[in-house]
């Protein structure tokens, strides 16, 4: 990978920039740091504060940490979570990276469809996916198992979804879209000279992919892996539904137990999250060690857009591989959910006499709660994603180009919230945003703020990965030619990041749409969102309503995603058109 190492550090750009117009930089930096303090440092600070207090007496204590280490049944859930998260991340990377390559860089058939369906998996809250998979693969009554028994004539089930491997499988298929989207967006931006060189020197398609293409997008692969790992650590619905029957506890279900106790042990729960912070800190440290001294410049002065690799006879094999995620994460579970959603009484099984559109009519036309929740979800996700990407990209720029001292601390702070499970974050947000200066309780703003803070690490990591791919040379040229710092950012850096920004926006928009726990103590009846509403229906056992509302959520989210995708493609074309003449000169 030494070929990518470029002598000059991007920090020198920062040094150059620092000499000019300091007030622009300081204004932006001050606003960003203030936002970071209010949105992130405050709530996380409250969680830390809570972790050293006693639930019963409210007094200072280290007892929660002592209990964490010594009490029975505390360590095993953490180990289980690490197993779940690591396996999820590994599978998600092994599936997501080749999938991204197939879709972005080859002439595999059905690329657009695969991209859309993979995003369909992304927009599905994983607890809904788990419900779908319970219908499909519960050991006795799961439809796939029933089918298998009929074919094989045996008694044993083909799958048992109520197992660690079942939970890993469901977590992984709904996490693949993270690695896929991040890596695909890097591949979309990548220059192809090096691939061309490898091919010219006689390397096969696969060899080129493994020794040139994937190493070039390594920053994105690692970010994808880390985000997948974090997903595996913080998801609640999947382990709650699939691991409870086997008595396997993970961090999030253990946290739910702390909340369920009387009196609820909120402070103990806060302390219980701290090992996760260390763990994630470790992951980001490893990332830094792996990537720190290398540059992964893909957009330089001579960049041009990629062209597709001809897979020849392997096209169909590629398609078969690419179908794994769409089939398992979208087609099968939504088939099951649609069948349930069209039933008068789903326990009767599918039949013509049991067919009804009542639940869709109810969800769309009759039920005011669903209507309000879908609008709220869309509005919060759109506003939250926009603010998040803006803030995350600015922080990434400040950190990558080292505009101020102490960027390591800024980076670490930005990354904190994502590893803290939503139910604990929710308490931190409550404390932080209910008191002055942010007295936001009961408003939409408190939920948007919570979403921005929670998903800031995604926007930041994605922004960082994008910036690592853009040569500081381009900014340097602009600065040498006399452009101001802000002018350079808005006319060079931002446009180069443009289509990446849209994928970044989607990377935040979608998780907000599917987030379940962060809003739990912040929502009010008028600011309710779809996921909490669906979870409530599940809590009340109303499966037909759960299924109909889930299908509705998928359709609505996909419409937004499709629009953003079209915009992204348009921008990419626009950029290609404007870059090409430059190359010719």
């Amino acid at each position, binding site marked *: 990978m030494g070929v990518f190492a470029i002598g000059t550090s991007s920090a020198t750009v920062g040094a150059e920039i620092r000499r000019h117009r300091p007030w622009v930089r300081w204004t932006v930096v001050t606003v960003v740091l203030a936002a970071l303090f209010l949105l992130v440092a405050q709530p996380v600070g409250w969680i830390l504060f809570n972790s050293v207090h006693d639930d019963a007496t409210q007094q200072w204590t280290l007892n929660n940490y002592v209990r964490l280490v010594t009490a029975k*049944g505390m360590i095993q859930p953490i180990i289980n979570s690490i197993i779940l998260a690591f396996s999820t991340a590994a599978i998600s990377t092994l599936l997501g990276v080749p999938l991204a390559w197939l879709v972005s860089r080859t002439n595999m058939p059905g690329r657009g469809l695969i991209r859309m369906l993979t995003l369909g998996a992304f927009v599905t809250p994983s607890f809904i996916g788990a419900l779908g998979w319970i219908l499909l693969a519960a050991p006795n*009554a799961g439809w796939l198992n029933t089918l298998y028994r009929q074919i094989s004539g045996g008694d044993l089930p083909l799958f048992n979804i109520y197992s660690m491997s079942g939970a890993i499988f469901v977590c992984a298929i709904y996490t693949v879209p993270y690695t896929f989207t991040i890596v695909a967006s890097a591949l979309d931006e990548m220059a192809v000279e090096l691939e061309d060189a490898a091919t010219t020197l006689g390397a096969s398609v696969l060899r080129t992919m493994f020794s040139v293409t994937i190493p070039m997008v390594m920053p994105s692969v690692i970010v994808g892996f880390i985000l997948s790992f974090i997903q595996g650590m913080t998801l609640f619905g999947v382990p709650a539904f699939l691991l409870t029957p086997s008595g396997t506890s993970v961090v999030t279900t253990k946290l739910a137990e702390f909340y369920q106790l009387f009196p609820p042990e909120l402070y103990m729960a806060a302390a219980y999250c701290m090992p996760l912070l260390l763990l994630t800190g470790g992951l980001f440290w490893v990332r830094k060690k792996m990537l720190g001294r290398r540059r992964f410049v893909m957009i330089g002065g001579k960049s041009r857009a990629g062209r597709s690799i001809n897979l020849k006879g392997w096209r169909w094999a590629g398609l078969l591989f690419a179908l794994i995620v769409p089939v398992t994460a979208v087609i099968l579970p939504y088939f099951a959910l649609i069948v349930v959603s069209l039933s008068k009484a789903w326990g009767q099984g599918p039949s013509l006499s*049991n067919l009804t559109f009542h639940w869709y009519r109810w969800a769309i036309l009759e039920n005011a709660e669903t209507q309000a929740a879908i609008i709220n979800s869309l509005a919060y996700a759109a506003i939250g994603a926009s603010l998040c990407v803006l803030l995350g990209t600015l922080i990434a720029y400040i950190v990558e180009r080292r505009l101020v001292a102490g960027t390591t601390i800024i980076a670490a702070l930005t990354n904190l919230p994502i590893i803290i499970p939503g139910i604990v974050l929710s308490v931190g947000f409550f404390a932080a945003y209910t008191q002055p200066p942010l007295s936001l309780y009961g408003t939409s703003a408190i939920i948007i703020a919570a979403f921005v803070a929670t998903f800031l690490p995604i926007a930041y990591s994605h922004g960082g990965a994008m910036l690592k791919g853009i040569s500081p040379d381009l900014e340097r040229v602009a600065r040498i030619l006399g452009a101001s710092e802000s002018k350079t950012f808005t006319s060079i850096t931002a446009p180069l990041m443009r289509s990446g920004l849209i994928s970044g926006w989607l990377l935040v928009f979608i998780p907000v749409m599917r987030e379940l726990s962060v809003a739990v*103590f912040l929502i009010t009846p008028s600011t309710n969102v779809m996921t909490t509403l669906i979870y409530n229906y599940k809590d009340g056992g109303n499966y037909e309503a759960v299924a109909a509302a889930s299908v509705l959520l998928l359709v609505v989210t996909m419409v937004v995603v499709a629009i953003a995708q079209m915009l992204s493609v348009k921008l990419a074309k626009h950029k290609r058109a404007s870059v090409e003449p430059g190359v010719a000169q």
Partner: protein
Amino acid sequence: MVEFTRRRFLQASGIAGAGLAAGLIRPSFAANESLHAAAQKEGALNLYWGSYEQRTIEAIRDAFTRRYPGIKVNLLRQASQTIYTRLRLELQNNAPNCDSLGSTNILHYLELKKIGALMPYKPAGTEFLPQEFQGLDKDDTFQVGAISLTSLNFQSDKVTSAPTSWEAALDAQWANKLTVGSPSFSGDVASWVVAIRKKYGDHYLQELAKLNPKVGQSNVDTVTDILSGERLVGLGAPFSYSLTQKAAGNPINVVTPTDGTILNLGLSAIPLKAPHPNAAKLFSDFLYDPEVSQILAANFWPTLRTDVPWAEGRSLSQLTWYRNPPEDLAAEVAEGIAKWKDIIG
């Protein structure tokens, strides 16, 4: 199911409504009017309710809105423990927002009363509650808001003779066929475990473990497992919700066990710092109104008035039931969960 509920409700209210409205509501009419006027001035009512599932509590809210126009009712329906935690957070951060707390755990109320966070108020109509549930708190800081029953449920197409008692469900024929919620996640299941341990000791859990029951999260999961065909008989199961599913046409039914249906009381209280105290009082009164009990009956819940019959002609007096006394309940729940984890997993 909504249509069904509505029809049942209209039928029930058609029969009972006119007479009851004329005979029973009139005495408190004047007091009620002035409370309504004061509540209208407040303009809103924030309900934090975990008792009753979404549909039933929405029906109660809608009936209240019809009866008392001019008050915007904000219904936050979340799990009992979640709304309690929310209320505690509001108290800690001095951001009071809740006007009426309706949760299923009496310990919430004992604790809130201890820290002086509840407003004493005796709603009109509590005298119609079953005798044994009247005057639960001598200072009237909380009242019964829901009567919840935990019974057995079963797949009615496939099971011809369902177990008639908790003890009978331990028969070997039910091996790999039972489903039950988890006491770690569900207050109702925790109550059931406490009651069953009192009656049969840990022996019950040991025998149950041998039958390899499927352990879900909440007691509602027993219904899901039965409807999907994953399991046939549910323990610690929700009585009302199972009957709602039966009425919708699903192959499920309940058995009230001869060795004691477990009865749990949902409570209702007004926080001392409620931003809309008059609306809260009006709603508390309304809970004991015949119309609410009719809605409850239509949704297969035990009614809050002895003069409004339950659905399907059932009544409290027909049941053998047992309620865990609140003393030492917190410790018993913790112990029950620990034993459950040791024995069942």
